[in-house]
């Protein structure tokens, strides 16, 4: 006995049969698509008509996000834009510092323990003009309880006086580039860069390493995935200690767990040889819903943090070039060992010089050894130009670009970081496709919201939040964008044989939509309503998750 689902429309992404009215599912996999008559030929079945007025498409694949999105929702959302939490509640964006303080104040009033830290996230004061948030602002929420609010970029943390005091920083004489001082000679409460942020953040409820194995966070993340139509999501990246792997295997293995998680081991805390060996060990522990074995390398920092490595002429404001997070020798060794061991590598490159280094290094490595179908993926790769995309293609790389940046920070890139021309070329999806580069697009949640249909909208429209089109020539079509959030992302994970399209033999992973992406005007793609998902043949109703 198997199930045949009837739908208003099924977008299969299978060119042999792009549209269908029915899909047959057995043992969590797809028997086929077609008409009821065609599918009945498989034998005794049960017809399920509950989606007769819905549109099915392949389950969405988020190729670059972080499970920590589920952890952050335990903190107070302080963002400028409306955002949905794992319960499906939409938190209105906060349009002034006063509104941020008011929401923090409400959360503060609900806390019993007077010493418990209060944390907030997704603050984006760029939108509040030139006024900086300082410790005195947060002191108005509480002067006795430590408070920390992470910025949306993840590169700045605002804290109150109590948090500074607990960290031993509320004293004169602090001299550190990441700790601006107020007129009184004491830290203003803004902390920039990992050293300063982590030194105080620990006292205000932020612990990055602890997020790696946060079970409630993983469960919340999974609920959010259902609401956004996501059936496979990466965790890019995680230190993956044994206890985190044990927990993830247990939780994802539960009958009701709705997502396939693909965690990547961050290159940190061990040498290259041990990294690749560890990846091999992890790969052997994979289950259907926990796909282990990939590694993530970091070549540089971020563009808005001015720590990305840019080629000439560098930053628009003349800021010094960014930081390298890996030496070319280490990169070469990692690539070579990974090719030899069949280990999947995804590399963070934000700036175009970082991309160039990876390309040069890979070219050298590939002269020494072959790497058939390696599909190593450049993550973000935001500033690659057409010539780099041609090399990316020639060297067998994939890219996972970040079009959400145009919406959230496009104006800032235009005015401040890379200047007008490169701001309108960033995340050049059309150039990537024109060069034949396998393309995925991503949210980097929690940096921007997990919502592949929104990301697709960004790639199709390239609008900034202010409404300006950031490089019309790099817009892509709806069909291309939908492919990028399904088969495209699956390809970068070497899962395209299993997921990413609705066709015979693949996993029964579907996004269940109220609206038809093909009929929706392209400028409304982000407004498509998601009913829920089917993952491995199991139905998950977002309203009941």
């Amino acid at each position, binding site marked *: 006995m198997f199930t045949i689902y009837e739908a208003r429309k099924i977008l299969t992404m299978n060119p042999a049969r792009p549209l269908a009215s029915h899909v047959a599912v057995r043992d969590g996999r797809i028997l086929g698509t077609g008409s009821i008559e065609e599918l009945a030929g498989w034998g005794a079945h049960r017809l399920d008509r509950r989606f007769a007025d819905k549109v099915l498409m392949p389950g969405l694949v988020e190729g670059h996000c972080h499970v920590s999105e589920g952890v952050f929702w335990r903190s107070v959302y302080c963002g400028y834009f409306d955002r949905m939490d794992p319960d499906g509640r939409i938190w209105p964006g906060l349009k002034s510092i006063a509104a941020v303080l008011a929401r923090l104040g409400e959360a503060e009033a609900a806390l019993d323990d007077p010493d418990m830290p209060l944390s907030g996230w997704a603050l984006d004061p760029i939108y509040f003009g030139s006024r900086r948030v300082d410790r005195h602002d947060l002191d108005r929420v509480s002067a006795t309880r430590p408070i920390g609010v992470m910025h949306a970029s993840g590169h700045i943390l605002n804290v109150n006086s109590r948090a500074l005091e607990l960290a031993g920083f509320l004293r004169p004489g*602090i001299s550190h580039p990441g700790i601006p001082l107020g007129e009184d000679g004491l830290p203003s409460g803004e902390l920039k860069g990992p050293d300063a942020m982590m030194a105080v953040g620990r006292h205000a409820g932020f612990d990055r390493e602890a997020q790696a194995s946060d079970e409630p966070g993983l469960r919340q993340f999974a609920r959010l995935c259902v609401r956004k139509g996501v059936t496979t999501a990466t965790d890019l990246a995680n230190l993956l200690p044994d206890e985190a792997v044990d927990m993830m295997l247990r939780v994802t293995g539960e009958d009701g767990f709705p997502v396939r998680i693909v965690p990547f081991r961050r290159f940190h805390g061990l*040498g290259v040889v041990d990294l690749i060996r560890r990846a091999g060990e992890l790969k052997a522990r994979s289950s259907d819903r926990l796909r282990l074995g990939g590694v993530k390398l970091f070549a540089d920092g971020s563009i808005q943090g001015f720590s990305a490595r840019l080629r000439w002429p560098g930053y628009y404001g003349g800021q010094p070039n960014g930081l390298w997070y890996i030496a*070319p020798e280490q990169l070469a060794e990692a690539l070579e060992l990974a090719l030899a061991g069949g280990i999947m590598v995804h590399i963070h490159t934000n700036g175009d010089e970082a991309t160039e280094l990876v390309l040069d290094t890979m070219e050298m490595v590939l002269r020494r050894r072959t790497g058939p179908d390696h599909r190593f993926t450049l993550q973000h790769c935001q500033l690659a130009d057409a010539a780099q995309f041609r090399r990316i293609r020639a060297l067998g790389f994939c890219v996972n670009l970040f079009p959400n940046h145009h919406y959230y920070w496009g104006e800032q890139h235009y005015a401040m970081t890379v200047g007008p021309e490169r701001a309108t070329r960033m995340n050049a999806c059309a150039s990537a496709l024109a060069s034949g580069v396998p393309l995925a697009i991503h949210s980097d949640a929690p940096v921007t919201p997990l919502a592949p249909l929104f990301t697709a909208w960004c790639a199709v429209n390239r609008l900034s939040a202010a409404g300006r089109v950031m490089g019309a020539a790099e817009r892509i079509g709806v069909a291309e964008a939908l492919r990028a959030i399904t088969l495209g992302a699956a390809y970068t994970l070497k899962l395209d044989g299993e997921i990413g399209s609705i066709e015979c033999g693949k996993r029964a992973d579907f996004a269940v939509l109220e609206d038809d992406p093909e009929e929706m005007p392209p400028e409304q793609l982000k407004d498509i309503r998601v009913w829920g998902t089917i993952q491995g043949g199991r139905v998950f109703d977002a309203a009941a998750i």
Partner: protein
Amino acid sequence: MDANDPIPASVIGGYLGAGKTTLVNHLLRHAGGRRLAVLVNEFGELPIDADLIVGAGERLIAIAGGCVCCAYGSDLIAGLEDLAGLADRPDHVLIEASGVALPGSIGAALSLVPCFRLDAILVLADAGAIAAQLADRFMGDTVHRQIASADLVLLNKADLVSARELAATGSRLASLAPAARIVPARRASLPVEIALGLHAGRAWRDAAGAGTAHVTAAFETLSFVLDGAFDVTGLAAALAGPELGILRAKGLLQDRAGRLMVLQLAGGRHETEIAAAEGARAGRLVLIGQAGHLAKAAIGAAIEAARCR
């Protein structure tokens, strides 16, 4: 050393392959009874020579002679705080920077932990490779920034290049880091007094006494007994002049107001502070420099010029 005194810390930087790990192991071997704590970003391929290890955990390696090596992961500040909390407080901390890290940033982070004080930034350069590294289209500016942040550049593997090449490389580095001292070495064998400074406790006694056992033939020590009062701050600044050739100095001198002052100098970095009055006798000054590079007459003149009359 008083339990409340800040722990001196040195940053050891330099590009991949310059010899940072060799230097660390050299210093551990010649610690001379000092309890050194080595802080590394991560336990990569053998940070410590196997024969020095007496016990190893996931984040801490115990080393012969009461020394330790710790991995701090992504949180340097927490790593430093952990070290400060060790039951056996280290005498000196060595922070080994990764090959692409900026030692100056690590020095800045150090300033955030009150129980430490930055003693010196030592940057190693591979004498045969540094010119190409400085010219590298990707890494050149990072290597520049590393060198420019140094108090002391250890021009390592000096025996593998010609004297002419060594001299040219040395003056190139001196132009990039005008305040730093450039010291050629082979196998990163820098005397521990130069690497760690001449700080209080055992280091001070050893250096001030006749025994300067760790100073090899390539280096020489000058010791002075100086009675009377001095403009200690002025003397420190004068001794930092590169033409004097002093790599490290420590003095315990009486100042104009009759206070006992400690004078410290490492490369171009110098500082003076009021000494903890623990019965130490004023009037001593010890200097270390490369053999034949100490400008003895000029040093004597600088001392006399700082004497209060």
